[in-house]
């Protein structure tokens, strides 16, 4: 699902889900999402270990990447990052 969720005027009436459950992920619940500034990242991968959802993967090149399908935006990664290169950004 895109981050731009429909407002109440646009959303279909009748408590019908916006998308089929196959396309609706737990990551869609989040209010904020982490943005990693790779230019300052030291590849310590602590965010990968701290993520309670296992939603931060370590890439081949050693940097980490967030799987937004399952990231609920808790912000633990940003709080634990030793170089503070993760910023929590409000979803629209």
């Amino acid at each position, binding site marked *: 699902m895109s981050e731009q969720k429909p407002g109440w005027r646009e959303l279909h*009436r*009748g*408590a019908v*889900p916006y998308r089929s*459950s196959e396309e609706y992920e737990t990551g869609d*619940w989040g209010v904020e999402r982490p943005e990693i500034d790779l230019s300052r990242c030291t590849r310590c991968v602590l965010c990968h270990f701290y993520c309670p959802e296992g939603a931060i993967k370590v890439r081949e090149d050693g940097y980490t990447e967030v799987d937004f399908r399952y990231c609920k935006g808790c912000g633990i990664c940003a709080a634990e990052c030793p170089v503070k290169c993760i910023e929590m950004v409000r979803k629209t």
Partner: protein
Amino acid sequence: MMQRQVLMGINGDEAVAYATKQVNPDVLAAYPITPQTIIVERFSEYVADGLVDTEFVAVESEHSALSNCIGAAAAGARAFTASAANGLALMWEMTYIAASLRLPIVMAIVNRALPGPINIHNDHSDSMGARDCGWIQVYCENSQEVYDACIEAWRMGEHPDVQLPVMVCLDGFTLSHTMENVLTLPDEEVEGFVGERGYMTIRGHMGDAEFRLDPETPLTMGPCDLQDFYFEHKLQQVEAMKQALDAIPEVDAEYAKVSGRRYGLIHPYRMEDAEVALVGLGSTMGTVRHVVDGLREEGVKAGLVKIRVFRPFPEEDILEAVGDVPVVGVLDKSASFGAPGGPLYEEVKTTFYDESDRPLIADYIYGLGGRDASQGLIRGIFRSLEGIRSRGEVAEKVSFVGVRE
């Protein structure tokens, strides 16, 4: 063109059953409970006699009754049920679900006091307790209004801008078991008025679909709706109620064309030059109107604003009807324990709060558990209002009238 109408001697419950017979809904699921029982009995006779096409589901509880109606309405059917007091209480969770799924079910509530101690007689504690569940609520003064509301309700709830369930509330015994003259429309006239149920168009799993469960156009109704969508759906319900304020008078106007009986959200009576007025709802309003006439003959400028539609609450109409009447009493036939006053009082007071020139308002809670609401009681309330007018202040905001000290 107005059709020839037949005058029938029927009670309030029979008026519900007869109107519903003429509407001929697809499904009726109900569990009998005093004082609603006659509705279910009469309708089951219509079914047994082959006078309706309705699938009658004899359920094991009221929770099942409304659940059954929800399933039927979700499948696209017109579904009807009726209950009272404990039965409505047992339906509780389903009342919210019916409204939030936007299913225009019609339910007659034969108002009865909620136990305990157990009591089968009339007050409004049952439907007033359900005032926030998202249903339109129409309160009736007599069996004619009951009959008419049970026909109009389908069109109110199914209005394209509304799509909400409707409760038609009638006072237990006072209306439900009292025979009155009721003018009834010919069957074909009712059939023509209610027409076919219309559906919302929504996005299903395979593109646009009518809002009903159909394997050809699959869609999901009412699944998990968490913090990222639930709020939006609630706002849609808020908006639907606002729309109902316009939709209901539209339906009333159309109904007036076929029946000659014109209803509105409220019914003001002798309010033009009133100095003291009562605001209330239900069958007691007939008594109040009679008392108003008597007081007028005695030189007291009394008036009445009868509220027919309590949800959505017709604030604008009430402001206009009360105008510059200086003293207003509110008649509440239910208590809200621990609240500043009865439910109607709170709504009326809130309505006037933003007005710079607002009346003095007092609440009179009466008739709990079927305690008699006599002319003498209403006269006493008007005397109290006159006292407030001469003193220029409300000494007692909430009074319990007709109760032993």
